């Protein structure tokens, strides 16, 4: 019950915070850079 409420609340929050007309694709470059370091030898 509590989980369902949280889910519903989150959806409502997301709907409210999103601009309705934005159908723009997500820009991959805007996301956090990927973590790909090269570790030293074992």
């Amino acid at each position, binding site marked *: 019950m509590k989980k369902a409420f949280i*889910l519903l609340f*989150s*959806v409502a929050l*997301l*709907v409210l915070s*999103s601009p*309705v007309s*934005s*159908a*723009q*694709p*997500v820009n*991959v*470059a805007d*996301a*956090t*850079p*990927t*973590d*790909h*370091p*090269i*570790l*030293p*030898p*074992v």
Partner: protein
Amino acid sequence: MEFGALIKFYRTQKGMTQAELAKGICSVPHLSKIENNSKEANEETISLLLERLEIGLEEMDEKEGLIQTLLGQLGEKINYYLKDKIDEIYQKLQEMEHIIPFSKFIHTYELYKYRYLLFKGFLAEAESQKDLLFKQKKNFSQHEEYLFRYFNAVCLITKGQYKAADELLEALYIDPSNDRPNAEFFYHRAIVKSALEQSGHAIHFGKMALQLFMNEHNFFRILHTLMMLGINYTQSNIYEEAEDCFKHLIRNAELLKQDKLLPQIYHNMGYLQNKKKNFKEALSYYEKSLALQPINNPHYLVTLYSIGENQYALQETAKAKECFQVVSSLAKELGVKKYRLLADFYIFHIVSPEKAFKYLESKVIPYLEATNEHHNDLTRFYKMLSDFYSQQGTYLEAVNYLNKIT
């Protein structure tokens, strides 16, 4: 030295019967008991038997001493990461392999052989050696058992199974009956924590390793530990320290012509600049790194992929696409599934983001979730999918992915 087994070995090799060997020295049943180690023979009898077999008692003692010295040297070369000199020692030990089973160093030898194979990256052979050792496990001394478990952790690290390695190293660390951990142990703990993206722990163990390596003037391992610390300072957003580590490393590696390490340091400096969103600088370091690497190795793949990502971030789409195409085919050739999936995702994304996100959901995410080792990548992709669905107006999916992040 296990003289009974040694006598039996050489008698059989010379095609002698027990009666022929025992004649005039001892009775046949007595010899039989000596050979099976069920009876302690006096030195004189042993000496006479060995003499008949044309083996000197003193010579055998000398050889046992030599085995001990060589094993010590092998361990030292591994600890000091002296890759070029290790084969010579290993070769000498192999030349004595027919005697080693009769010495008291049989288990130590087999254990260090396991470590040597891991050190050289001969994974298949190391696995067979591990199976052989597993069968002998019940005969191990406490120290030998510790070594076996520790080397198993190194084996897991080599295979990229970091969680299992972490559990094993932790168990060894908290067991009070074990030896005091050495620098290499802390170094391996730091590597594992680093791979598991637990940077705070990695820095903690890395600093302990660094101090101990410095005490023993272990030059190569100091460089390796500094690189690992640089990566973890980067991951923890402690950029000044990270930059200090890498600058120090670049200076030393260039000076000492560390050709193998230098491209890795450049790559990780690129990784730091990337994290700071200095994409142009990052690109320059990645390119420097790539130019020094031989094609067709996994590190080349990681660097090329990072170049692709940077070019994409700089909106150099055509160049990025070219990079990802090479990464995809090279990853296929090398059998590195992760980078094939990631590169294909970007290739799709350049053409159609919708198609790319479907691919992300159906191929990339299930793979990353199954391997359970790529937490940072997964978090990033969940966030991207959540944003994507949110912009599409399908909020339930968006929230599902957001929930997965926590």
